[in-house]
């Protein structure tokens, strides 16, 4: 390092320091620098900067000259000239305003969405101290572990007792509940059970009731203000009784909670005391069905507590035959970063990044169009600049004038885009499944964002043309030998290449996403999800199940009925199993789910060995049967993992967590989880209880009649349970909601991007034609054909677009490969995607340029040549 004072600091000092002080101050600072230098050159330099900044004081600053000139008439003149220019170049102005508005609308809406998602849970004052507990479990003898956002009832009290870091702990459980009031019953999807520590951990404002007692005891219930209004109108709900659930238990309303922001991972309309669940009070880490949150005393105790928990759990699980550990997740990061949702679906942070990137790309396209068009047009203003300079305009003044003109244009676009964003909100809500309102655009944050956005964009896009324009040399300009500079042309061309690279990339990316979505929707999953209805069950319906199945089957359109825990769309539930030939402690962990004899028939699973389950098999596991024998249906992967071959497997003995029985059949592998996951071993086993849904397979011929028959039957048999159903198809697609949204959003924005890029091309080519009218006239006189002239004119643009394709395609390939690698079952990035993107861009270019070229080529050369 040199031991000379930093040059930049000296220049800074010189820029603001009064000239008459310069010598003495510089001398003083030099001495200071030398005095500190022995302590190290870096320290000396830092000190030098520090001293320079401390000279920014009123006494030392240069006096600004005040000229006492009234600038107002000049501003008025600038404004008038700017306005006239807008009107004169109507096409360019319209292209710019339209492009800017569309770009800004896209940005505003994306910002709205991103801000909403990023602000999740920030309104909780304790957010930094709350953690969620994730359970990680595996069985001895098996290397794989599973994780999930569920824990047993034991975790919260034990952790609060054992670890001093935990101030409060809470268990929660969300359920669908039927709520009855005055003889009417309603299904409530957001019914949350929570411990009484709820109000110690989370910040919810109580309109009525006492937070200390509201959840303190069984059968107590709080409502949100809007839920209260639905049930009680303007009456006070306090101490009223609501009948809850299929067992019709009366709950006392103990409070009303003010409606809370929608950007919350904890969502409820009803909040009931956890003790009313009568949940398993046994001290076990199994039976994990609840969400546990902890409030730490200090936010920095996170890591220490995690270590303590890990060693604590090792001790707890000794000799239990399983390993369970609990992992902590910071509350504020769950919505964007956790693979496990809160009480609302999570948003993947990557998805937000993609959106922001798309917004920036669109903004870049718009800015580049503006820069291109204004620099191209700068020739027209050259003479004006020359005259202004001759009359005495200084460069900063001209710079201000031109950047002011940009502001004018951008200001117009801002008003249009704010109005446009208002109008587009309902459409945007459909697209993203959110509930934004026009008011969300008027928050202080958003106004600030809009202002900053517009300032940045107009400075970025406006300063370059302004710099070029204000830099013209009057003598050269006025002599009339002035040409667009080579560097400006180079800039225009590279910006255009950039725009089309973005377009090619977005088109290819969109097509690949759509390909994958198409693949997901049409892949043969190993089961048939068409025309299958899924009806949710609860314990009350479970009792009536045999009768219900019988009644449903009496209709000829109903092909098969099955009670089960999960449909083949999504099977979860870890079990451990072993065969008699395995060593005593060895276990294999599998995913398994209880089914009945109709399951294989209703879902169209393909049996490749053995036979289907029968009613007799179900009787073998009936509650009143003292010698229960289970029957299993395995998939191919499970057979492989057990080391058997498919035909041999049938009839073998299996022991799955105390359920002993025989393999009845083997089905072909099927996708029972998202296509992001590889197929794993799965076991279907006979069991009569605890079903969560009925699957009804109907023929596709007479669907409305079949559905209304099912509904009527249900209503007759179970008048108090609301009838609801979902097609398995829809359930399947819900798993890919994020991808679907991505697909729609990407299609929309890539369409916008290519539209904007074309607008820029249109403006630029129109201008270039206009510049070359004389040349074209002479060429025609010399005998060039119209075709040849169109060719000549389009050539340069085609070359640029071809270059963009060369850059854009590998880029798209690389990024889309990375996106696709998140799926275990996926399409490749195929060549025709790039072919389509390239063809689209070239066609659009040819069309845009060609139409204008034709116009120039067929015009009469006399017209362009006679006027001088």
């Amino acid at each position: 390092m040199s031991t000379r004072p930093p040059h930049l600091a000296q220049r800074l000092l010189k820029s603001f320091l009064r000239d008459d002080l310069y010598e003495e101050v510089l001398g003083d600072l030099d001495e200071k620098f030398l005095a500190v230098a022995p302590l190290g050159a870096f320290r000396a330099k830092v000190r030098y900067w520090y001293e320079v900044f401390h000279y920014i004081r009123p006494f030392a600053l240069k006096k600004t000259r005040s000229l006492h000139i009234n600038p107002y008439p000049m501003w008025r003149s600038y404004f008038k000239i700017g306005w006239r220019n807008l009107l004169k170049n109507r096409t360019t102005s319209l292209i710019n305003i339209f492009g800017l508005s569309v770009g800004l609308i896209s940005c505003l809406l994306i910002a709205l969405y991103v801000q909403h998602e990023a602000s999740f849970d920030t309104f909780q004052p304790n957010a930094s101290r709350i953690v969620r507990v994730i359970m990680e479990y595996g069985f001895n003898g098996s290397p794989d572990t599973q994780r999930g956002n569920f824990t047993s009832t034991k975790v919260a009290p034990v952790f609060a007792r054992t670890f001093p870091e935990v101030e409060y702990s809470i268990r929660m459980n969300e359920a669908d509940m039927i709520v009855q009031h005055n003889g009417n019953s309603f299904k409530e999807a957001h019914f949350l059970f929570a411990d009484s520590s709820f109000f110690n951990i989370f910040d919810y404002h109580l309109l009525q009731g006492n937070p200390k007692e509201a959840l303190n005891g069984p059968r107590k219930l709080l409502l949100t203000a809007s839920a209260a209004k639905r049930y009680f109108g303007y009456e006070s709900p306090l101490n009223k009784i609501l009948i809850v659930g299929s067992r019709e238990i009366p709950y006392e309303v103990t409070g009303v909670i003010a409606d809370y922001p929608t950007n919350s991972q904890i969502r409820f309309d009803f909040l009931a005391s956890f003790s009313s669940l009568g949940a398993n009070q046994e001290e076990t880490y199994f039976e994990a069905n609840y969400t546990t949150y902890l409030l730490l005393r200090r936010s920095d105790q996170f890591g220490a507590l995690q270590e303590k928990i890990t060693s604590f759990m090792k001790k707890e699980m000794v000799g239990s035959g399983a390993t369970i550990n609990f992992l902590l997740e910071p509350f504020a990061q769950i919505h964007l970063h956790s693979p496990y949702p809160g009480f609302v679906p999570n948003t993947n942070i990557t998805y937000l990044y993609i959106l922001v990137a798309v917004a920036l790309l669109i903004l870049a396209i718009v800015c580049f169009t503006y820069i291109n068009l204004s620099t191209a047009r700068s020739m027209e203003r050259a003479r004006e600049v020359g005259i202004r300079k001759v009359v005495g305009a200084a460069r900063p003044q001209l710079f201000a004038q031109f950047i002011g003109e940009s502001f004018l244009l951008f200001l117009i676009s801002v008003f249009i885009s704010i109005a446009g964003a208002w109008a587009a909100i309902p459409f945007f809500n459909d697209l993203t499944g959110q509930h934004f309102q026009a008011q969300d655009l008027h928050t202080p944050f958003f106004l600030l964002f809009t202002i900053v956005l517009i300032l940045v964009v107009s400075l970025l896009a406006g300063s370059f043309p302004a710099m070029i324009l204000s830099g013209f040399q009057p003598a050269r300009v006025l002599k009339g030998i002035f040409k667009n500079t080579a560097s400006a042309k180079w800039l225009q061309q590279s910006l255009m290449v950039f725009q089309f690279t973005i377009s090619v990339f977005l088109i290819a990316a969109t097509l690949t996403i759509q390909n994958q979505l198409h693949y997901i929707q049409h892949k043969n999953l190993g089961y048939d999800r068409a025309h299958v209805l899924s009806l949710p069950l609860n314990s009350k319906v479970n009792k009536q199940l045999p009768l219900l199945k019988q009644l449903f089957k009496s209709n000829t359109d109903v092909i098969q009925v099955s009670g089960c825990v999960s449909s083949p769309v999504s099977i979860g539930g870890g079990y451990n199993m072993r065969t008699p030939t395995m060593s005593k402690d060895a276990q294999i962990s599998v995913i398994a789910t209880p089914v009945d004899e109709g399951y294989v028939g209703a879902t169209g699973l393909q049996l490749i060995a053995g036979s289907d389950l029968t009613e007799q098999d179900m009787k073998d596991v009936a509650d009143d049967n003292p010698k229960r024998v289970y029957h299993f249906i395995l998939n191919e992967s499970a057979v492989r993992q057990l080391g058997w071959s498919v035909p041999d497997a049938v009839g073998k003995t299996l022991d799955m967590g105390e359920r002993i029985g025989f393999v009845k059949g083997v089905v072909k592998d099927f996708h029972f989880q998202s296509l992001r996951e590889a197929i794993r071993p799965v076991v279907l086993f006979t069991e009569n209880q605890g079903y969560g849904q009925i699957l009804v397979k109907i023929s596709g011929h007479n669907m409305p009649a079949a559905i209304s028959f099912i509904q009527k039957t249900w209503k007759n048999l179970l008048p108090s349970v609301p009838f609801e159903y979902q097609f398995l198809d829809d359930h399947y697609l819900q798993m890919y909601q994020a991808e679907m949204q991505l697909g729609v959003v990407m299609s929309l924005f890539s369409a916008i991007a290519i539209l904007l890029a074309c607008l820029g091309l249109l403006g630029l080519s129109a201008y270039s034609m206009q510049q070359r009218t004389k040349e074209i006239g002479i060429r025609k006189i010399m005998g060039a054909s119209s075709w040849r002239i169109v060719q000549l004119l389009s050539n340069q643009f085609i070359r640029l677009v071809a270059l963009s394709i060369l850059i854009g395609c590998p880029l798209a390939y690389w990024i889309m490969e990375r996106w696709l690698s998140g799926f275990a079952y996926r399409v490749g990035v195929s060549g025709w995607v790039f072919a389509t993107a390239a063809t689209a861009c070239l066609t659009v270019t040819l069309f845009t340029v060609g139409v204008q070229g034709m116009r120039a080529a067929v015009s009469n050369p006399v017209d362009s040549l006679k006027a001088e």
Partner: protein
Amino acid sequence: MRISSTIKNLMIETRLGEFEEVILLLAGILGESAYAFRIAEEFQGQTKRSVSIGAVHSTLTRLEDKGFLKSEMGKSTAERGGRRKRIYTLTAYGKKALAAAREFRQSLWDQYPGFAVRIVAG
């Protein structure tokens, strides 16, 4: 002295602040070598408080405006790249102001009971 500062003088507060008093004293102590950098160094050495040259310079200018100091550019020397220093000297008015400040303080000390009676509080 510039005209503007003479005019400003009419409106300027002539009492000394604590920092001003110290700077003025230091300027008097350093004599021939009283310029901004040296005064700042001396200030740090004597008070163990860090100060920027800019702050000292600003105070010196203010004291000059008040008429307590006058200044002159020194001779060009080989050190600091031949750049000249601005040397500050106390004016008679400045000396008077220092003396007045000291007297005022002394009179306050004289009235302070702890000194007169020397009672040690338990």
